[in-house]
């Protein structure tokens, strides 16, 4: 045996450690991107404050301050605080190589997600959309029902005063698109929250208990899937007294089937894993095993289908409002604005076109985000 020139007692040379949690990235590019985003958001917030301080003063001095105005002010304050906090953290960040994060599943997925440029674009658009929705009372140039003098302000094409034109009553389309985003985004969010909870519960119960519970729940799921969603919605909404809450509830109750199937599949494989057997051996109740050990492990596909589901729900709500069965006309929603412009399509194309584009861009953002999340959360799809 040859004598090794290196004595065995010497400690091994330290492995090179990349400073970003062991993940090589182009740090320079990202830092610049982050700085640009920070400057842009400060610019946006300051411009908004500068442009709307007079309106804020006037409204606060007025006799009655609407609730949504308070919400907008609170969100503005929150956004300024958030921007300040991020800036402060960036400025006093310790030099690279300081603190090291652990590598949880979510941290790994987060890094993959951040490298996906299209998905990040979707995320940014989504954040901007929700910010615009919250700040609408400060941003919108006109109120949603302001008609001006109908004779001279009705049916104007896009111009500097009315970027998206006005409808036949002289209402500003841009303002109505902004106010309509509330309906679309909040209905999408709440309905998807309902359908995801229901779908996860049904899927988890079916997968965990198996047997007749499984067959009964899955046959019911198949039945619900055999109804085209829009037809079922139309029938239910037409039979009952229509209101926004009914629309939200029914959208939520008709969107859970796909999630239930996905979750059931996941649970079927999770059920046989050692940690579940261990939990059972410890004598835990079924409810606790399902809610504490099984459902958290099925979250990744649920998050993906929730993101894609918000896009689909926004489309479905717009279709319902277009048919006159969803949100009723004085309240602006993208669907009923498109229906409004339908009669005057040749004379005033802008009335239907801009709300439609708003829907398209919102849904594209959610689809990009959902695709990116799927690629990041599913280890088989990571590149």
């Amino acid at each position, binding site marked *: 045996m040859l004598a090794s020139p290196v004595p065995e007692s010497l400690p091994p040379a330290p492995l090179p450690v990349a400073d970003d949690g062991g993940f090589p990235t182009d740090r320079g590019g990202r830092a610049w991107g982050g700085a640009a985003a920070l400057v842009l958001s400060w610019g946006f917030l300051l411009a908004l404050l500068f442009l709307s301080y007079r309106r804020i003063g006037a409204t606060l001095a007025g006799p009655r301050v609407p609730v949504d105005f308070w919400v907008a002010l609170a969100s503005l304050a929150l956004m300024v605080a958030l921007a300040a906090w991020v800036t402060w953290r960036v400025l006093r960040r310790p030099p690279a190589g300081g603190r090291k994060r652990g590598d949880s599943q979510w941290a790994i997925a987060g890094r993959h997600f951040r490298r996906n440029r299209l998905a990040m674009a979707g995320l940014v658009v989504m954040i901007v959309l929700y910010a615009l929705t919250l700040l609408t009372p400060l941003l919108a140039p006109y109120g949603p029902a302001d008609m001006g003098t109908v004779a001279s302000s009705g049916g104007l094409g896009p111009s500097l005063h009315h970027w998206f034109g006005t409808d036949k009553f002289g209402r500003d389309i841009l303002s109505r698109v902004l106010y309509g985003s509330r309906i679309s985004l909040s209905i999408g969010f709440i309905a998807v929250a309902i359908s995801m909870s229901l779908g996860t519960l049904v899927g988890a119960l079916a997968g965990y208990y198996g047997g007749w519970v499984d067959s009964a729940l899955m*046959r*019911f799921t*198949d*039945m*619900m*899937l*055999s*109804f*085209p*969603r*829009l*037809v*079922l919605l*139309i*029938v*239910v909404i*037409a*039979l*009952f*007294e229509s209101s926004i809450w009914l629309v939200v509830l029914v959208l939520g109750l008709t969107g859970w089937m796909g999630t239930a199937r996905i979750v059931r599949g996941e649970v079927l494989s999770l059920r046989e894993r050692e940690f579940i057997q261990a939990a059972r051996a410890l004598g835990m109740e079924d409810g606790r095993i399902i809610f504490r050990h099984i459902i958290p492990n099925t979250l990744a596909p649920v998050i993906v289908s929730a993101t894609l589901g918000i*896009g689909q729900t926004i*489309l479905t709500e*717009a*279709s319902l409002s*277009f*048919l006159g*069965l969803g949100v009723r006309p004085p309240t602006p929603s993208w*669907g009923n604005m*498109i229906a409004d412009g*339908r009669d005057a*399509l*040749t004379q005033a*194309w802008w009335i*239907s*076109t801009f709300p*439609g584009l708003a*829907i*398209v861009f919102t*849904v*594209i953002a959610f*689809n*990009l985000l959902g695709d990116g999340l799927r690629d990041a959360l599913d280890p088989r799809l990571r590149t």
Partner: protein
Amino acid sequence: MIGYLLRRMLGAIPLLLGILTIIFFIIHLAPGDPTARFFSPQVSPEVIEQMRHNLGLDQPLHIQYLKWMKSFLTGDFGYSLGQGRPISEIMPEVLWNTLQLTLVSLVIIFVVGMLIGIVQAVRQYSVADNVLTVLALFFYSMPTFWFALMLSLIFALKASQWGWPVVLPSSGMATVGTEWLGRGAILRDRLLHLILPATALGIGTAAGVARYMRGAMLEVIHQDFIRTARAKGLSERTVIFKHALRNAMIPIITLLGLYLPFLLSGAVLVETIFAWPGMGSTVVNAIFQRDYPLVMATSFVIAVIVVLGNLLSDVLYAVVDPRIRAE
């Protein structure tokens, strides 16, 4: 194969019974009943009571349920309150109209979607691939009814204003007066009327098919038997269209059953916009006229079409993939 088919068909029967049950309970959960439209000071309560008796609404729920099941299963859908004629008379014509529209757009969906998917997979990461990916995302995220409006705005309304050589019809199924012309002219007129609705209905789904097809083709193209086929000296066309496409088609066939409910949902909107007298516009009109029997019959028939479509795609799947039959 026959056994597999029979098992799938038997499985569809409880599904249809369940669908009927859901429809029944939705009507009976709703406030009011069909006599509500006759309430007025001039109508005495006894008359309403007599009506309820004639319609069988005073019987216990389970009796009503069994009667309802029996009449639906024997094809007796009742009487349309809005159109004033038996539903079994209305149903065949609107069903046929919807089938024309849906079948033409299915052809568009699968031909266009698969071709785009193949092009994207063969030229992965090229400019064409990226452009088509963005376009597919755009069309996939678009509301059907908005696209339908934009199509009729550009190709029907603006086309005639701008004096384009071809102005496509944007409403109804036939031009007034064509029924006096020959068979060829009627067929040509019908096809012209189909272009816009079928495109509006199919484009979003075609974009979805393209996304799937790209993935399925990419998976197949990188497998060993494709390399073998190329190594044998087969032309690229044979490799792609014969060896790769056949294997990539298998997952696409299941999409047929999956997309059918989406297509019929879309048909509700597209038929309303293009005044196409099919199931979709019938159900919407029936709702605005509070014509409950027609609403229930139409939604049941739509659900039956979906179940049959799923059955068909299962059978096709078993035909192309022998592994399924063995299970």
